[in-house]
């Protein structure tokens, strides 16, 4: 088995009466960028710290490269962890910070310097060796923390919300750098975040977590395009949810009447069996799948709802609309609005979307 393989078997950790995580099984192959995505308190950090060895699981086992490491203390696991606050030692220079792990590994003195310098160069921080962490900007501290971890050539890289303390622009830059770096080195990476965009952009696979459980696991496109339930559909991206009743199913399409009285045509999910109609369903439509048109421009057609614009926010690359109809708010994003007329608050507008953009999450 190649180095950098991680397997969790039925992991459970309890704080008092409360299970922070429970019944967690997952397997991460060498070289993967695996993200634990979920809201705060969902147990993702607990899980990461369990792998690192800072949390002893009450149930189950952690396997690294096929070996159970439950009894192995953190300092013997050879995993590189980057903390949310970077945790740079303030009493050491940048060089000493990065050299620390090498010294702990009794790497010969003459090898330490070139390796530290190379690691710093790798993260674009050449020339900062003599500085103290407090003299660096947030982004630079982040890079030192990364260099300090990479230099020891860990089996697995563990990242605990490493970008959350950076400002928006820097975060985007670092995201791309991290992506390139990880793909270049091919280091198995486990990434914890609550930022769905980050997760989608970086990961080879994502596990969406909530309330101590993994709700759905899959590639970024699977997670976004076919969320398994309402939580995933709402947490990863934005969604307009409707509940309704299936009126009938016809050659690959379903006709659904929502509680508000809208008639919706939806593409049948793959493997759908018409097990009797009149069943309750929950479905969603992504805001970016919805188009806005002038109310009079077309006769009422399939998947068209007319309403009044309740809010309109122009953001350059897109316009966010909120349309009120039959007592509820529907969000619609008009992407690439350049040159198009904009709807204003109070205008009448009709929204329209394709049957393929209707996602059914539970029945």
């Amino acid at each position, binding site marked *: 088995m190649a180095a950098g393989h991680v397997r969790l078997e039925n992991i459970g950790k309890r704080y008092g009466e409360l299970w922070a995580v429970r019944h967690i099984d997952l397997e991460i192959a060498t070289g993967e960028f695996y993200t634990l995505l979920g809201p705060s308190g969902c147990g993702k950090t607990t899980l990461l710290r369990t792998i*690192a*060895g*800072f949390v002893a699981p009450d149930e189950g086992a952690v396997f690294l490269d096929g070996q159970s490491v439950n009894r192995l*203390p*953190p*300092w*013997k*696991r*050879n*995993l*590189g*962890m980057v*903390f*949310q*606050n970077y*945790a740079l*030692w*303030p*009493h050491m220079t940048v060089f000493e910070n990065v050299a*620390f*792990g090498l010294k*702990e*590994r009794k790497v010969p003195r003459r090898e330490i310097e070139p390796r530290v310098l190379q690691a710093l160069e790798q993260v674009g921080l050449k020339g900062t060796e003599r500085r103290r962490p*407090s003299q660096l900007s947030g982004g630079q501290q982040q890079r030192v923390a990364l260099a*300090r971890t990479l230099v*020891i050539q860990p089996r697995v890289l563990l990242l605990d919300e490493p970008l959350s303390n950076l400002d928006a622009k820097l975060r985007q830059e670092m995201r791309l750098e991290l992506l390139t770096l990880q793909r270049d080195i091919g280091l198995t990476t486990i990434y914890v975040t609550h930022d769905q965009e980050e997760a989608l952009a970086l990961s080879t696979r994502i596990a969406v977590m909530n309330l101590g459980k993994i709700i759905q696991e899959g590639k970024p496109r699977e997670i976004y395009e076919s969320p398994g339930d309402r939580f995933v559909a709402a947490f990863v991206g934005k969604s307009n949810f409707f509940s309704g009743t299936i009126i009938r199913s016809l050659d690959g399409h379903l006709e659904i009447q929502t509680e508000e009285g809208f008639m919706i045509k939806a593409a049948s999910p793959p493997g759908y069996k018409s097990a009797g109609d009149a069943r309750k369903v929950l479905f969603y439509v992504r805001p970016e799948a919805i188009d806005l048109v002038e109310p009079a421009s077309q006769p009422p057609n399939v998947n068209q709802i007319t309403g009044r614009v309740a809010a309109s926010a122009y953001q350059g690359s897109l316009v966010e609309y909120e349309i009120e109809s039959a007592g509820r708010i529907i969000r619609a994003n008009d992407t690439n609005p350049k040159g198009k007329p904009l709807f204003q608050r109070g205008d009448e507008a009709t929204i329209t979307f394709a049957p393929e953009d209707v996602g059914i999450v539970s029945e």
Partner: protein
Amino acid sequence: MAKTETVPVFVPGIGVDWRQAAIVTILLGLLAVFIVLPIARVLWVSLSDGEGGVTLVHFANFFRRPLFRESLWNSLVAGVLVVFFGSLIAVPLAYLSVRYDFKGKILVNTLATLPLVIPPFVGAVALQLILGRSGAVNLLLMRWFDTSIPFMEGLTGVVLVQTLHFFPFIMLNTAVSLSNIDPSLEEVAQNMGSHGLRLFRRITLPLMLPGFIAGCLLTFIRAVDDLGTPLMLNYKNLLAPQAYLRITTIGIDDVDGYVICVILVVISLGSLVLARKYLSLSEYATVHQGAAVARPVAGMKRVAILSFCALVLGVSLLPHIGIVILSFAKVWSFSLLPTAYTLDNFTEILFRAPHFVKNTLLYTGIAAAVDVFLGAIIAFLLIRSRIWGRNLLDAIATLPIAIPGVVLAVGYLRVFHGWDFPGLGAPLTSTWIILVVAYTVRRLPYTVRASYAALQQVHVSLEESAQNLGANRLRTFVKITLPLISGGLVAGGLIAFMTNCVELSSTIMLVPRIESGPISYGIYLYMQSPLGRAAGAALGVVAIVLVSVGTYLTYRVFGGRTGSAFRL
């Protein structure tokens, strides 16, 4: 004439705020008269050749006298030894109490601060009854092994008493530093392969050094400054008692006394500067992300920890035990325990000579109130204004930390003796007011620090939003700032109050008449005669009760951060 309307313009950061300037001027004037002037006079006398010139001949004379050389050496050695032995007790206790969770931990934490509530000179007397030449322990040793150990003789006794009294300073400061270390700093080191003693040496120790050094410094300065302990143990070859003896027996004009004072100040200031320099070099902004989780301990490990604590704290509580027993004793000499018990001692000090307790409450009460008032103003100017002179104000107000009580007292005697103070019609030193002044000045640094720390927590936007909603500056201060910092103010005041309750080194020189003396002076007087010892112990018990109540209230107000009030 056209009606002109004057619109008050408030331009922050530009021009001088005249009200603040006036306050700064008044404060600087006060501090100059009561802090700078006395010290300057002491320095001047030690350097003056009597004809307006400057000479170092007095210092040369000091170093020519073997007694003075020995005293200087002894003072330094005693200070270092107290810090050393104090650290041996304090650092393990601090580490255990911050990093481990075990049954009985609260008890350990409480007991470890108890030495602070007993004045060291009171503890000295009590320890002599237990460990002294004819104390309980040596009596037993004589009876069983026909031998004795001179615990309390000479320098050993001074170091022993001071170690047991001062180690909590090191412990409290170290514990604060330890608990401020972000747990992830250690976790990441573990993640890198470090653990155990190596982890402690390379990460934990350097990160807790600021607090540890601050504690050591405070201990060192206090130990060198301590006059009561050597006097009580009748060991006079130290700088503080030498200064005291020169001035009180030979006279106010004896130059040697002043030279010793200057050397005392140089030692304190020097160590303060050294420590500051080190601290500023290693000023770590340890982000505090939730307290480090204390590891639960049970079984044999817990037994080991508790045994260590019990041993250390048992010894450090001996003075308390001794003093309580003595206060109820009718006769206690050359016996394990008193041979007869009585309540007479308390009747004596509470009814026959109640002025000691009354005076202490009066003086320390006034001094604490003034300290809180001044401390709040100075802290406010330091944090919220950009006015010129505020840093000077801070420097002078903090200076008393490094000025031994003896030195301040000598300075006061020199400056105010024979000068009819304006509005008083008599020299300041002939009334009890001089004691209040000395107490106020000596503890001002504490209230400045406490207010400063409290005010730092109040973000300026809290005040700005009040002003934005229409409150003027005074109303903002009263309605927003004051309530938010009141905890810090009260805590600072309580600390000033309780440390002044047991102040002896300047008291002993400044008390104008016996009936104006406070508790500490009363204890000193009673302890002079074997017959009065028990009454002195009863006064000591009163002092302990006062300080305990103060400590308890401080904990209630300040919570776990009480240690930070004893910081630099």
